[in-house]
């Protein structure tokens, strides 16, 4: 009787050990505590920064088992914004993102490899301009915990560099501007 109770209590304690449990998160689009930014060289003289304003996604994360994490993001390509109407019009056209033909871009993770304390390489498929290719996001776990309003959140940042031509983007901006760096940060609300 005592042994059974003891076993039950131990099991119960183990199940509720700490808050490091696999959990599902929804990226906080409502409060917009997430950004999908990019940076590309202009003639080798400066950086153009831009953002995709309209995206949503989910991730599942367990600090005790980071390699089981998953992430999924879908963005609306027409929401691109580089603070210049004429440039944004050009970016949405067939020369670049071809948004009428490819209104969304997606990233779906396939594996996660821990690279140190709180950092990991997230490998996944990026579908952009209708082309799907594997990319690796160098990610860093920023933190998790309760928020002041009754919720629980976890946040990350990550970067990856892609070559525009790999995704069928036609425009030739010169040798300095072949690559675009994607700079991401997401905060998710635990479900």
């Amino acid at each position, binding site marked *: 009787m005592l042994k059974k109770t003891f076993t039950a209590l131990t099991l119960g304690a183990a199940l509720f050990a700490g808050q490091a449990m696999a959990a599902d998160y929804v990226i906080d689009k409502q409060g917009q505590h997430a950004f999908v930014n990019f940076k590309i060289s202009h003639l080798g003289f400066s950086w153009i920064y831009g953002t995709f304003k309209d995206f949503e996604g989910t991730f599942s994360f367990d600090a005790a088992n980071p390699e089981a994490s998953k992430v999924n993001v879908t963005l609306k390509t*027409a929401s691109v914004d580089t*603070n*210049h*109407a*004429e440039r*944004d*019009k050009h970016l*949405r056209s067939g020369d670049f993102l071809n948004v009428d033909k490819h209104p969304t871009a997606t990233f779906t993770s396939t594996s996660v490899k821990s690279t140190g304390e709180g950092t990991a390489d997230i490998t996944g498929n990026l579908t952009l301009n209708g082309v799907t290719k594997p990319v690796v996001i160098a990610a860093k776990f920023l933190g998790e915990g309760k928020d002041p309003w009754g919720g629980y959140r976890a946040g990350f940042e990550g970067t990856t560099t892609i070559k525009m031509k790999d995704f069928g983007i036609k*425009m*030739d*901006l*010169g040798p300095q501007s072949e690559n675009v760096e994607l700079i991401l940060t997401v905060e998710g609300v635990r479900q």
Partner: protein
Amino acid sequence: MQWRNSSRNYGLTSIFMHWGVALAVIGLFALGLWMRGLNYYSPWYRTAPDLHKSIGLILLAVMLLRVVWRWLSPPPAALPGHSPLVRLASTAGHLALYAGLFVVMLSGYLISTADGRPISVFGWFEVPALITGIPRQEDVAGDVHFYAAWALIILAGLHALAALKHYFIDRDDTLRRMFGRAKS
């Protein structure tokens, strides 16, 4: 020749504006099509659109003046040989040309000013943005601008053919009076 229109002839003001606008419209259409294909490293990549926008805005000013002038000095009366159908068709055609012109010019203006930026006219002065923040304003205005420009240039072509028809086939004063050279 006089500045004002008479009952038989267009005056110098209308003549200059008509042929000036015709030249500008043909030139802007060609420039617009050509500049779309320019490579990022072409020396014309920025100059061509700057010219296109500057001339386009001057054209907008001229067209507004033209509307005022039409009220101040109405065009010559319809020729006696023009049947009711010809009068109706020409009124409709000319109205469509004016409408097409304003749609093309205003939509073009709305592309470049969509983010609140003004448009510089040859570096002399800037035309400020008035309407901004329409979702994908630059794209919608861009589509309107493109299709309306094609419609306008086709209509202008028909307008030119009609004028030549009046000159060579009907042998009336329709085209001549746009040079101030009406015979009757």
